């Protein structure tokens, strides 16, 4: 590793988070830099562009108070690295990986690039281990598997934090859990003090805190830093997963704040905006975070992500939700209307999706009849939804008897399946599912085969 060099730089201009510095050191693109002000306070930055005489440094903290003449630059000619090592669990870090809990500094055994390296697609192992979250609308309908990236698409004021916390605490494997091997990384981006505190309290009350590392970028911290927080946290998560061999669940909240920061920084670079002012590279930028989830052949640990985003205006077509949906392996959509009806968790099942479900459920993974049951419930609930629209003008009375039974099914599905208090095993969720189907005419249940009809719905094959 090259030694640190400190030199006086002549800062030529400060513009938002960007500092234009005379180029009198031989630095490469993306090098890490510390900008030290008059009082000796260091701020982290990175080299964003270079020409022969100037380098553009993106300061990742506030540039407030930086002078043009009295600023020194301390450099390391290497990209941003994070010193990771044992003992990260149970600790709390700031936006850029510095201990925030007053505890001892971390004994770093490895310095890893915060941007990570792309996982070689040819070396990925397929995520296949079903995680039982205890939530029916997830476990039965949109199953989560280890190594998946499955976001919660939510809206302001909806109980996404509660659901995410519940998943973090309740999730377990159905096969005997390999004990001690799990870890939770909580990444708060632009979150309020109370969100962070609530999460910590929840973890503490169930003794999960010692398995948890928290990275906090609070709402009042600069936007540039917010772009780094998930990168530090994911670097820690990669270390925990692929070096220490743990099964790591990363909760990222709130991706919307992250994207706003991205937009802000992009604007300060004078870049041409794409949709709604967000930069054209937002897809690639988000992918550089989300694609860090996964399983790797020959490595024991896994990295699962549950990012949370609040959809501006509850609009699933908003660029933040849209681009996320194009990258992640599905989404769990929370719905204001269900929430208003007092249904918890207010999961809107139809637009929700788990793309990895098929590889983690069925015979040998969960239950041989799990896929068919999920399919049938989807088909029936979608039909109920469709009939609801048909009936919206003329009322239920204009409907044939069959359709009315579907409507009743739809209501029941929301009230007694989606809605739940406490944890349910997959078996319990499936039992409710079969019970609901019994209220429908058997000949409409085309996603089930004769054996399933006979076994669960007591329909004789020759009926």
């Amino acid at each position: 590793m090259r030694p640190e060099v400190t030199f006086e730089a002549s800062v030529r201009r400060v513009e938002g988070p960007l500092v234009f510095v005379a180029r009198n050191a031989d630095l490469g693109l993306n090098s890490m830099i510390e900008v030290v002000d008059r009082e000796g306070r260091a701020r982290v930055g990175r080299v964003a562009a270079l020409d022969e005489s100037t380098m553009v440094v993106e300061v990742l903290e506030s540039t407030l108070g930086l002078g043009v003449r009295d600023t020194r630059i301390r450099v390391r000619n290497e990209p941003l690295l994070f010193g990771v090592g044992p003992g990260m669990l149970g600790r709390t870090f700031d936006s850029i990986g510095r201990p925030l809990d007053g505890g001892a500094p971390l004994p770093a055994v490895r310095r890893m690039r915060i941007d990570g390296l792309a996982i070689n697609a040819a070396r990925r192992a397929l995520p296949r281990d079903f995680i039982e979250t205890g939530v029916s609308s997830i476990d039965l309908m949109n199953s989560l598997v280890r190594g998946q990236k499955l976001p919660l698409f939510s809206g302001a004021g909806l109980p996404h934090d509660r659901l995410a916390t519940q998943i973090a605490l309740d999730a377990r494997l159905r096969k005997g859990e390999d004990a001690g091997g799990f870890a939770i990384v909580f990444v708060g981006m632009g979150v309020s003090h109370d969100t962070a505190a609530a999460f910590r309290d929840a973890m503490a009350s169930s003794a999960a805190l010692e398995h948890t590392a928290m990275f906090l970028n609070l709402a009042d911290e600069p936007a540039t830093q917010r772009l780094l927080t998930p990168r530090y946290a994911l670097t820690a998560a990669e270390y925990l997963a692929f070096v220490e061999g743990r099964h790591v669940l990363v909760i990222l909240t709130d991706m919307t704040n992250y994207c706003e920061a991205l937009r802000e920084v992009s604007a300060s670079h004078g870049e041409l905006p794409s949709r709604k002012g967000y930069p054209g590279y937002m897809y690639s930028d988000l992918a550089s975070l989300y694609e860090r989830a996964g399983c790797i052949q020959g490595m024991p640990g896994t990295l699962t992500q549950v990012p949370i985003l609040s959809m501006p205006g509850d609009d699933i077509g908003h660029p933040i939700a849209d681009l996320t949906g194009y990258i992640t392996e599905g989404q769990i959509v929370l719905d204001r209307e269900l929430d208003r009806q007092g249904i918890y968790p207010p999961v809107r099942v139809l637009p929700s999706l788990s793309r990895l479900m098929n590889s983690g459920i069925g015979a040998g993974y969960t239950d041989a009849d799990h896929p068919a049951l999920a399919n049938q419930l989807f088909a029936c609930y979608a039909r109920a939804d469709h009939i609801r629209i048909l009936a919206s003008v003329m009322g239920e009375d204009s409907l044939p008897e069959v359709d009315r039974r579907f409507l009743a099914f739809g209501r029941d599905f929301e009230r007694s399946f989606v809605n739940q208090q406490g944890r349910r095993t997959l078996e319990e969720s499936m039992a409710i599912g079969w019970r609901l189907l019994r209220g429908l005419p058997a000949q409409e249940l085309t996603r089930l085969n004769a054996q399933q009809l006979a076994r669960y719905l007591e329909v004789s094959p020759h009926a």
Partner: protein
Amino acid sequence: MTEARIRWISGPVLRAVTADVFHAQEAVAVGAGALLGEIVQLAADEIVAQVYEDTTGLKPGDLVSGTGQPLSVRLGPALLGHIFDGLLRPLDTQGAFIHPGLGQPALQRFAFEPAVRVGDTLGRGQAIGTIGTPRPQQCLAPPGISGVVVTVAPAGSYREDEAICRIRRDDGATRDISFAHSWPVRQPRPLERRLPIGGPMITGQRVLDILFPVARGGRAAIPGGFGTGKTVLLEAIAKWCDADIIVYVGCGERGNEMAEVLDELPKLEDPRNGRPLMERTVIIANTSNMPVAAREASVYTAITVAEYFRDQGQHVALMADSTSRWAEALREVSGRLGELPGEAGYPAYLSSRIAEFYERAGRVSTLGGREGSVTIIGAISPPSGDFSEPVTMHTRRSVRTFWGLDRGRAQARFYPAIDPLQSYSRDAEALAQWWQIQGNPAWTAQRTAVLELLTEQAHLERMARIVGKDALPAPQQATLLCAELVSEAVLRQSSFSEVDRYCSPQRQTAMLSLVMRFVELARAAVQRGVDPERIAAMPMRALLQRIGEQYGEHRIADIGALWPQLESDFHALERAQPAAPPAAEAAHRAP
């Protein structure tokens, strides 16, 4: 060798000063790691290049050296059955994480069987011999090379770059030929001439083959919002279509999807010859977390590989998931170059790039006089699923088959979620003859009937919303019932069902004919006063709704055997008809 020194760098784009002569689109090696790049703009003493790898650490003063060649890839026998990055560098020999500066593939040995003798005249595009890979390949001279064979290696095992044949060209110059040769990706490989539409490329997916078929050498697009089924459909086609060679390019999409293809293909057998599907497949993976500029190159790499196999007389299918990411990469680089943005920030040349790409599809007579084809199927990821955005609109003008995916169907888990009212195939008419020869003379009539039924269904549902479903006259209720049956029984097909994921043309014909016969009989019965509810309750209807799952490829004959049952069920229905008001009167039942 030409040299330049970096003057400015930001992200994947650099400017470098030079006194040497560089050429437009020349490939360059950048910095100490010799990162691969390509010149995108030239001025008197300055070049602008995009770099295909992570530029971290590069700085002004670093060396940029010219290669004298446009961006090229090495084509040869080592491609089939393997996975590569966007610049055709093998990934299956790399570690868990990709470091910048991937090397070129190690040279491999292959068995060779000559097909020419010394003194023979080797015409353009003619094969020199056969290369012994699991799926035998032809050894071709690079396009345009012809002459008299001076030496040719005897049968044996040779390394990819070893000369196995020497040719004296007309101008007297000699040229050594080996298994592999390199070809610039942005330059279409020459062909003798284009051929008109022949037969369809059978995808094995009923909704596509029956309603919106694509021709061999055709061009199809699959637009759809996230989660509507683009990737699963592309993968299904890659697995089950009747092409000889598959080139699958994952352009800016998920790593896990590539891993899944890699995991599955070796385990699956080609239904036509029992060989592992992986043997016929080349995978090019430039996932969303890999460098953006290489995303742009990857689709050209893929089409070049496809053309290479076409030139061996093969029918090739190229799947590109997703062309939108390619367009976005163009936009990003264009933005960094400071070009004037057009619609939605895309450069003005977006539409011509898309057109040029699809133009490389086609059924052709190769230089060697063989018939070969490249069929392109490109996924499009329109922002918020809105088809009026630039990439979808420009692509629409370039393709002949359009498979629009519908969010509502996908959310109801009705797959493939093809919207029959938005999709089309301009090749359907030309392909009718093929189906006739294959034993379904009624194909066109059935296809038209299905499309009409689905159009009517949409119309009736709008009406039912206003007047109430119960108020629809019996024949219209029957139409709704029939449309639902056709959707359930024929159009729906799960890619995850071992029985139904592939449907041969014979089984398609058997299923479609039977279901359309049901529709005919149902409508006739209702005309004669049978209550649609009684048709809905028929066990035969329930059976047909599960027919795809119950009657796999081995039970095609059993489908035919259901005909008498179908006819007699309807007879029984009408005979047992209670004294009910005829349909016409039922229509006037109160609300």
